[in-house]
């Protein structure tokens, strides 16, 4: 990693010096951002990806966001350098630009290669998974008072992948917690809370049972909490957290937790606001560089996923959920039928771009373009609240283009 960084700064190619200078300029003088174009990598992805990516590009253009996209598509063959369908050039592009936006990507079935997301996560060392989760005004769900952020450690814990059979019928799986990884995710959580004007950080744990592993995680959180006296810090046992979330999600603000708990809790939160949408995923690179990659999460019901996975074979097909499961399945089946008819899953013009749009808003905030971010977010929320143009998954009939145009009008 250090080698790659060094190479980046020394300038592996003639044109790679410029972006890093631009990057430095951006961090130290945010005013300069108006005149300078920021370069960002865009993975439109598969399926509905290109369609919703187009929507983001259009809106950014209308809002005059100073971003220049570098588009990268998933390769057709396995790149031996990454052992995945993602090419080395794509990864290099993200490393260079330090920020990227990613549409849904389908990992083709088959052995001998890594999943696309895993490749991104591991190669770029994206250690924190951030998912804002809030109910959209004007769109009625069972819980209307959700406004929380889950921050999940993304590299270790239960997902270490270390398992073995001790004797026949007895299997062990290792959960690894390290001080380094815990500290950096805690640091990020508090930093996020501070910069986003949040008041409270809750560490989620099960240290009453796993006293050493989760105990270490808590200890790290406490250490970091001391550095941020203005932010309230509390610790919640995960089972209690689950219960409080479903009883009253408004009790929480920013949640920070180890890998598995994060996986469970963030999906639970998404379930609370069922009908949407706004789960952006923001993955972090090394803390010193503050590099980001932002992707919209699959927001797919399990059953839709099951249907989809057969056809698109994906871990994250980009359909957004809404309505009831049955309706959703029907909706998806319709789309799938349509896809089959047209041969290519493109230009259906039915997809909901909200998740990717909100992810791009997160990206703008990360780039400290707060005014642009606010404007775009307001326009999205207004369009949905207005209810005139909603895509099929939100119970409307608008096409992607109509929805996008409506957002542009609100800008």
């Amino acid at each position: 990693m250090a080698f790659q960084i060094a190479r980046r700064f020394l300038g592996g190619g003639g044109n790679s010096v410029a972006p890093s200078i631009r990057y430095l300029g951006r961090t130290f003088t945010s005013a300069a951002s108006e005149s300078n174009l920021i370069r960002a990598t865009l993975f439109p992805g598969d399926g509905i990806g290109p369609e919703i990516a187009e929507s983001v590009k259009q809106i950014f253009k209308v809002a005059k966001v100073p971003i220049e996209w570098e588009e990268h598509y998933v390769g057709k063959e396995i790149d031996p350098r990454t052992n995945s369908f993602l090419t080395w050039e794509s990864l290099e592009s993200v490393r260079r630009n330090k920020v990227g936006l990613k549409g849904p990507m389908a990992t083709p079935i088959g052995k001998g290669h890594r999943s696309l997301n895993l490749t991104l996560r591991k190669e770029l060392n994206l250690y924190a998974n951030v998912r804002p989760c809030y109910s959209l005004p004007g769109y009625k769900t069972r819980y209307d008072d959700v406004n929380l952020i889950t921050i999940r450690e993304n590299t270790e814990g239960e997902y270490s992948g270390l398992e073995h059979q001790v004797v026949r019928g007895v299997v062990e799986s290792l959960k690894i917690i390290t001080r380094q990884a815990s500290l950096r995710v805690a640091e990020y959580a508090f930093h996020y809370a501070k910069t986003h004007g949040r008041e409270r950080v809750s560490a989620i744990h099960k240290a009453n049972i796993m006293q050493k592993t989760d105990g270490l995680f808590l200890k790290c959180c406490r250490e970091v909490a001391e550095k941020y006296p203005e932010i309230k810090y509390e610790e919640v046992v995960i089972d209690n957290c689950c219960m409080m979330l479903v009883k009253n999600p408004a009790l929480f603000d920013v949640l920070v937790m180890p890998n598995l708990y994060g996986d469970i809790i963030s999906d639970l939160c998404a379930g609370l606001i069922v009908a949407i949408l706004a789960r952006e995923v923001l993955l972090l690179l090394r803390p010193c560089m503050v590099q980001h990659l932002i992707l919209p999460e699959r927001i797919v019901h399990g059953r839709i996923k099951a249907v989809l996975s057969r056809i698109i074979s994906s871990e994250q097909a980009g359909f957004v959920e809404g309505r009831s499961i049955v309706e959703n399945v029907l909706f998806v089946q319709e789309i799938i039928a349509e896809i089959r008819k047209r041969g290519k899953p493109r230009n259906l013009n039915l997809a909901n771009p909200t998740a990717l749009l909100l992810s791009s808003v997160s990206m703008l905030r990360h780039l400290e373009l707060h005014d642009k971010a606010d404007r775009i977010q307001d326009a999205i929320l207004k369009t949905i609240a207005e209810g005139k143009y909603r895509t099929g998954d939100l119970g409307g009939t608008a096409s992607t283009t109509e929805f996008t145009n409506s957002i542009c009008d609100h800008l």
Partner: protein
Amino acid sequence: MARKSFPILKQLIQQCTNRSFSSTASPRAVTLIPGDGVGPLVTDAVEQVMKAMKAPVYFDRYEVRGDMKCMPEEVMDSIKKNKVCLKGGLMTPVGGGVSSLNVQMRKELDLYASIVHCFTLPGLPTRHNDVDIVVIRENTEGEYAGLEHEVVPGVVESLKVITKYCSERIAKFAFEYADVNKRKKVTAVHKANIMKLADGLFLESCREVAAKYPEIQYEEIIVDNCCMQLVSKPEQFDVMVTPNLYGNLIANTTAGLAGGTGVMPGGNVGTDQAVFEQGASAGNVGNEKILKLKKANPVALLLSSAMMLRHLEFPSFADRLETAVRRVIAEGKFRTKDVGGDSTTQEVVDAIIAAVD
């Protein structure tokens, strides 16, 4: 071993209509552990109601505190002798180097199955209606194995152990429970896409057992998706069978859906012994304010003791107790704060005693 547990199960569930049987039965001894925090308050409520109903049980009371190093010998002996225990919450200190007494007890008595029954009580305001889920959780291994060590400073490992033996017996228990209870579906909760070996073994055992019960529908669901589904469409679930940690989370999530931990009954069942306690968050003993005001909700433990009465083959008493509790909740005049009222524990208890016919 699994076979032995079947009669226990049957007693737990079956609604016996034979009233004369129970009234002539000889009284049974039950070990009572009031526990910490609000524990004494709610166990006292149970004692009062039992007395008022003239239920044929008497209690052997033992004081145990959550911060004790280990369970006192005489308590364990008493449970082994009586075979049945009713227990308030025991606090587990966080990171204090003391292992949880709850876990200790489950391990020593081999209480391998934890049952939590989550259902919406008529009259309670909740966000979801028609929740009726039984969470059956493996109670002895998995993440709670307690095997942890520091590899080098700053790097800690925790072992999750899954065995074929335990997975099979919990799966059998779950299917047998579903069968006896006339439930239609068993859902196995896992994370086998990540923990391919450990959760894979659990799933494999569930599938093997499922093949023996063709009349019961069997499904598998990944734990994160399960939570999402639970909070959006809880009606779709029936009986759920889970490894240790996931069961803990799911039981608490469902408890939250159906009115909170204050009303969820539960029990831990082993081959010979059974310990009944609040269904969810047994380790959470309530805050001091509730304790001071004496406003803890006794409903969960009362419903748990109804489960216990059924287990002891006093089904008529169990029915009476349950009906009384349900009636008081449905009337809505006496409810504690957690379920939208402002009554004290004693007021609720008095109302229930009055409602017991």
